[in-house]
């Protein structure tokens, strides 16, 4: 999960996010190399004692510094498109979870078999118990099974919100009257956090998303216990 002074991306918990991180690292490295080269060139140009009052030109260097950037861009575009199409791959989901944004909480619906529906409010800071994370933990979590393609349908009840869980590589707007779809697979069990990512009023910063991934056998127990509780 996120930590103070974090600079990079969170570790991946889904195959798509692993690919996104690799692509990010590849592209950032290219960007840093180009920036370093440009910076060095500017520095040497500005500090050199050499002078030449004549107009200089060279077909050779002009060719090189036209072709080389084009090749670099192709080197970036190919993995980019690969990941983009990978994110859109058809996978027949095993489960559908509906996420509805409200001011200022999320509600989750699991209606494939029975009608399980519950709200998820942030735990107020004054009510936290020692192991809980401030501004991240919620009273109920969105529970999903591991290693199963999950379809998430996102909408909102009032204003625009946005669901994001960075470690899963999920971000999708919650728009009233529209049902947005995204799919993900959670690679290993755990608890993963995200925050509302579209300004939605006074408590926009206080409506986090908590996803708990557990093995499928335990998922069935959880859904039975939730149905009994609610």
């Amino acid at each position, binding site marked *: 999960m996120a930590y103070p002074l974090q600079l990079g991306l969170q570790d991946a918990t889904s195959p798509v996010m692993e690919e996104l991180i690799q692509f990010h690292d590849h592209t950032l490295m290219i960007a840093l190399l180009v920036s370093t080269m440009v910076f060095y060139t500017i520095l040497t140009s500005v500090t050199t004692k050499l002078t030449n009052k004549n107009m200089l030109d060279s077909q050779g260097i002009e060719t090189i510094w036209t072709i080389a950037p084009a090749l670099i861009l192709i080197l970036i575009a190919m993995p980019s498109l690969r990941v983009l199409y990978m994110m859109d791959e*058809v*996978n*027949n*989901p*095993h*489960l*559908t979870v*509906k996420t*509805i944004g409200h001011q200022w909480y999320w509600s989750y*619906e699991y*209606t*494939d078999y029975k*009608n399980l*529906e519950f709200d998820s409010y942030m735990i107020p800071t004054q009510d936290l118990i020692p192991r809980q994370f401030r501004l991240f933990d919620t009273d109920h979590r969105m529970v999903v099974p591991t290693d199963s393609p999950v*379809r998430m*349908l996102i*909408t909102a*009840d009032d204003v625009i919100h946005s669901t994001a869980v960075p470690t899963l590589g999920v971000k*999708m707007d919650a728009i009233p*009257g*529209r*049902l*947005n*779809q*995204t799919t993900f697979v959670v690679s290993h069990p755990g608890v993963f956090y995200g925050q509302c990512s579209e300004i939605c009023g006074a408590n926009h910063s206080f409506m986090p998303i908590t996803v708990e991934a557990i093995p499928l056998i335990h998922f069935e127990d959880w859904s039975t216990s939730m149905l009994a509780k609610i």
Partner: protein
Amino acid sequence: MAEDIKAKLENYHTAPFDTRFPNQNQTKNCWVNYVDYHRCQNALTAKGADTTPCEWYRRVYTSLCPMAWINSVIHE
């Protein structure tokens, strides 16, 4: 035919991928299945036939459509 539908319904996990709605916006998918369920019910009831095939549409729209949307339509 009826046995196929029953087998399909028994093996139902969630709404399968619908090639008519391959993209991000699934609003129409929910609406189409809701409407198809009611059309199927009306058509088969008018003919006096078994309405079990319509169950498929009901399962799909229940999986896809937010409960608030379904309830608000019913109450209208």
